[in-house]
């Protein structure tokens, strides 16, 4: 099925951001947001596979109650480094720093982000942080859990805590710089006619994310600095033997790390809000409610952190307040799901790969979000807290939600990024493989959790084995689902069919310029006269709008055509 009813043969643009300049320096000193996006793509992919390797080790080890593969200390390092690699070096930067970097200027009709050199700086900051963390991983490893709970991390751990803490501390600043860049760009660089309520929801989601990055990340920096000082210099902030308070650490840690969940999921929601209207060829249902929901999540998300601490002995009243606020933050997510669903009604739905990811996201995010209720609810949290129920829940959100969103976005914008198409059939198959493998991996973990298997166990009582074996089997399928896209997307970048400017077609400004875009994005500054996802007033897309004149219009010459 050809996506493009309009023109004869799409042409690969002779000059674009990929071939404008050559050589190592032209990449490592670039200030082009698109190239920086690709630098991030390479580095987060590296960490995805490092973290994935640890995950494979974990799942293989747990096939047997006694543990098959690793010593207790090795196992503890595996799950810790899996978490650190995936959260700080893959999930948090993935969608914002790769897709957000690449797309935000294109979507709002700008030439670049507001501070191109700060954008490059943010990547270097990330790389320096990553280097410290990798150093820790190969020189002693890290066994504190990604949560670095004190006083274990600051006094008792025999692993390379200090370099890892320094690494995560440094990387946080790349997040702050990216967030700052996005906020300023969205405020000041929108093209003529691109009003706030014409912005694609991807941009709204990144706006909300940027707020969280700027306000939250400094707190983790402070927290890790204090923990580092306690570890290195014996200053007693958190160690009760020196008059410190270990629970204080948890408050500070979660003050960032809970909002950080929204740093990971909000951009994925932004991607889904692009995919569903595009492949249903219909305006997003309740645009302003979905945009407001992003902001509500960002704001309320700052007020729920202590729901990670219901069983630390914190005051009952605090627990009541935080549980209530946690239920509140669930509402805007529910509103989004309902709006996405409603968008499908009356649409013209196709099942291209990105849309399969959107469907997958809907299903998995639904499970992930709803199981959060059991944890936010005080009565049930007493039982499921710190069990595999939690592990399953947050993997449904982080992997089922954020990674499905990320992969859906990569497949959607890959033709824009490299100018070529991947194999549609291969892509659909791997989307389905991922969905099946994911559920087989993580669904049994809900049952394990309710049965009472605690997290972070290198060995377990034999009655838990059945579900662990299922989970490991699922993980092997999941691994195939992740390797396939890696292969065919890279292949497509060199040998894929030329995509053309707007293969799907979609309504965003990024599709008005060539694929891949020129370095300056647009040859002529675009002027926006349409609402987001408005297929009815876009004769340039060449679709059969009821009531419009029959016959195909020629593609708009407006912008970006070389």
């Amino acid at each position: 099925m050809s996506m493009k009813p309009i023109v004869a043969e799409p042409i690969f643009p002779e000059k674009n951001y990929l071939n404008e300049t050559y050589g190592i320096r032209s990449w490592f000193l670039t200030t082009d947001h698109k190239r920086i996006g690709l630098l991030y793509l390479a580095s987060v992919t590296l960490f995805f596979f490092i973290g994935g390797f640890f995950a494979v080790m974990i799942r293989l080890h747990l096939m047997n109650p006694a543990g098959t593969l690793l010593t207790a200390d090795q196992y503890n390092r595996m799950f810790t480094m899996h978490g650190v690699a995936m959260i700080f070096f893959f999930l948090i930067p993935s969608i914002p720093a790769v897709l957000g970097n690449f797309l935000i200027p294109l979507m709002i009709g700008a030439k670049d982000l507001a501070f191109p050199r700060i954008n490059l700086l943010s990547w270097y900051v990330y790389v320096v942080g990553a280097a410290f963390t990798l150093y820790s991983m190969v020189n002693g490893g890290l066994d504190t859990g990604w949560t670095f709970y004190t006083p274990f991390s600051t006094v008792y751990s025999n692993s390379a805590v200090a370099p890892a803490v320094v690494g995560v501390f440094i990387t946080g600043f790349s997040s702050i710089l990216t967030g700052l860049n996005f906020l300023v760009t969205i405020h000041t660089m929108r093209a003529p006619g691109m009003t706030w309520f014409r912005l694609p929801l991807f941009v709204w989601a990144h706006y909300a994310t940027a707020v969280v990055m700027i306000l939250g990340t400094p707190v983790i920096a402070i927290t890790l600095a204090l923990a580092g000082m306690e570890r290195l210099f014996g200053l007693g902030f958190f160690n009760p033997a020196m008059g410190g308070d270990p629970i204080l650490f948890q408050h500070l840690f979660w003050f960032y790390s809970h909002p950080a969940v929204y740093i990971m999921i909000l951009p994925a929601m932004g991607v889904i809000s692009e995919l569903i209207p595009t492949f249903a060829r219909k305006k997003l249902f309740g645009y302003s409610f979905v945009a407001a929901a992003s902001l509500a999540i960002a704001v309320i998300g700052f007020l729920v952190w202590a729901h990670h601490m219901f069983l630390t002995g914190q005051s009952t009243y605090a627990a009541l307040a935080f549980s209530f606020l946690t239920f509140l933050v669930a509402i805007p997510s529910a509103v989004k799901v309902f709006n996405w669903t409603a968008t499908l009604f009356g649409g013209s739905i196709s099942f291209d790969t990105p849309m399969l990811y959107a469907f997958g996201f809907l299903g998995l995010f639904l499970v992930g979000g709803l199981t959060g209720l059991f944890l936010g609810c005080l009565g049930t949290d007493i039982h499921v807290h710190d069990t595999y129920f939690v592990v399953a829940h947050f993997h449904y959100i982080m992997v089922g939600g954020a990674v499905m969103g990320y992969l859906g976005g990569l497949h959607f914008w890959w033709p824009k990024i490299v100018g070529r198409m991947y194999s549609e059939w291969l892509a659909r198959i791997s989307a389905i493989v991922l969905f099946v493998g994911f559920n087989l991996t993580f669904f049994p973990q809900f049952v394990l959790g309710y049965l009472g298997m605690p997290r972070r166990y290198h060995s377990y009582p034999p009655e838990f084995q059945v579900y662990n074996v299922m989970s490991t089997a699922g993980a092997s399928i999941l691994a195939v689902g992740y390797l396939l896209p890696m292969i065919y997307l890279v292949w497509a970048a060199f040998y894929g069919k030329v995509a053309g400017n707007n293969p799907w077609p979609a309504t965003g400004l990024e599709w008005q310029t060539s694929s891949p875009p020129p370095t300056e994005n647009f040859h002529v500054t675009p002027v926006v006269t349409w609402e987001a996802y408005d297929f009815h007033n876009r004769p340039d897309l060449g679709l059969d709008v009821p009531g419009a004149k029959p016959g195909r219009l020629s593609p708009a010459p407006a912008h970006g055509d070389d």
Partner: protein
Amino acid sequence: MPSSLPFFPVEASNFAGNVDSLFAFILLTCLFFSVLVTLLVIFAAIKFRRKSEGEVGSAVEGNLALEVGWTLVPLVLAIAMFAWGAVIYVHFRTAPQNTLDIYVIGKQWMWKLQQPNGRKEINELHVPVNRDIKLIMGSEDVIHNFYVPAFRVKMDVVPGRYNTLWFRPTRVGKYHFFCSQYCGTNHALMGGWVTVEDPADYAAWLSDEGGDLNPVSAGEKLFTQLACVTCHIANGSGRAPSLNGVYGAKVLLADGSTVTADEAYIRESIVQPKAKIVAGYQPVMPTFQGLVTEEQILNLTAYIKSLQAQPVPLKGAGIAPVPAGKK
């Protein structure tokens, strides 16, 4: 207990049934919405599938009534879940009177538990059925967590403070307990068994072995060894207040506020004596931080608790001339 594919753990405490009912309520609500949304998505995906290449969807923008509806309905359900959960949690955090108190110390990577008569166990806990049990828990090193899945209860065990955990076992049997807060190398091995017995069996077990000094006597001995007795003179004539009747009572502090003398207060007064000064006394007590183990603190506490039975002093904390029998 397990069949080949277990789904639910056994219910063996007063909390288990409540937690499971709430779980079922949330589960059914969630199932309803997930099935609803899934069916709607599948229905739409089939009914509104693209029929021709150039087809576009209808020009719908949204619907205010729907938006309000699907904001309010989940909100109401969410508040219901919150409220039910809150009721269980408050009950769980409020231990009843007249509990059987058991002291629990977590350390890397074992549990030390001590019955009221002094009988000690490691990674084993014996309790009588249908009796309110309160665990008073401290840690020697890092944060641990005492978790009994069959009872549906857990609580962190935090160094530097006491957390308590109460439950009433309702079913005779042997149940796993786990450490569920990651605590280092052998975290996964830091567990054991709770044995719930008929009161008679429990009593027999308890008297089976009298080797250990009970905590009160051990505490009394320490009280002398550490020279606490030289200032905390029972008749109130010392440089420090008499401790008779202090436990559970309100103590007036130098800054005019009062504090209830519970385990946490006693512990703090031992390791950080300057934190709260009793009205009318000088801050002369040295800190015992690092000089006493958590276990010794628990013994001292048990001893001070036993003084509760002594005639209640007439005024303040350092009063009550009792012709004290002790020391």
